[in-house]
């Protein structure tokens, strides 16, 4: 990664400036051609270095709801349960973690009142207890990975 690429990636993780000519502003800041910067972002998206470029909303403030939940899935059923959750549109993220509670997933729904029924549905189709870990207080959310 060149020094310019590194600077651009770090700068864009913190955000595009909300000014009338954001790419022009970024070009001046990084002493680079704004068009080249946009092309670089486009390449990163194609490459999969970036998973998204755009507005990041606090979905709870724009009418969505989330929760984190976990299950202790018996090893021999892990793949089958993984497939069951894969089919549910409400499951946005799912990670295997090394613990007795070995499946951790995030539900993302447009209406908070559907969280509980969705968790109940997952318990019903898997026959496993779902531990719900709704956020009670948030201290920080900004993933910044300097390169």
């Amino acid at each position, binding site marked *: 990664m060149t020094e310019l690429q590194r600077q651009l990636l770090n700068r864009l993780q*913190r*955000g595009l400036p909300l000014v009338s000519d954001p*790419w022009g502003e970024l070009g001046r800041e990084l002493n680079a051609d704004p068009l080249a910067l946009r092309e670089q972002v486009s390449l990163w998206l194609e490459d999969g270095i970036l998973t998204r470029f755009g507005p990041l909303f606090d979905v709870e403030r724009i009418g969505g709801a989330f929760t984190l939940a976990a299950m202790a899935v018996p090893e021999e059923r892990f793949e089958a349960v993984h497939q069951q*959750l894969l089919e549910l549109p409400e499951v946005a993220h799912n990670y295997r973690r*090394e613990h007795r509670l070995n499946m951790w*997933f995030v539900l993302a729904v447009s209406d908070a009142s559907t969280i509980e029924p969705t968790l*109940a549905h997952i318990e019903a189709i898997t026959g496993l207890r779902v*531990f719900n870990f709704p956020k009670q207080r948030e*201290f920080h959310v900004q993933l910044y990975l300097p390169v």
Partner: protein
Amino acid sequence: MSSSTCPYNAELAARLVELTAAGLPLVAQPWAWLGEQLGISEAETLALLQAMQAQGALRRVAAVPNHYRLGYQHNGMTVWDIADSEVERIGAQLAALPNVSHCYQRPRHLPDWPYNVFAMLHATSREALDAQRAELQALLGSACRQSDMLVSSRILKKTGLRPSRASNRTPQGGSHAAS
């Protein structure tokens, strides 16, 4: 929500969210492009974004890296058992550390789960991850009664955090209700 900041048009905001679900087009004048779709001017679009940001509905317009591709292949969900009266102070301390990307208070499920503070760590090696956890432990000292770190070993699903409207699981629709 604060009434001291400029309110924004909720319907326009909802359309903005829909419009940018797949991201912001990489055009020279992105606010003008958005404004055209929304039927408002470039300046009004920028004002909408700024108002949403002021009220916390928009965090930022930014790049989201695939952390695996940047070399951050190790993530650990550290979990801590902190006295309820200490959570506010400890949570703020953890959140201020550079390696902590997310920090939340969440409910305990006793006796299975005694932890009430979750802090996510990201590192480029397992050793670095363990060192970060040790730093947190040292910082918390006796404020933490017990802790654990759950490392992720596989991504099973990762889509954009976009609320699903596909759900037909209504609160009343109790046919699947599990106790």
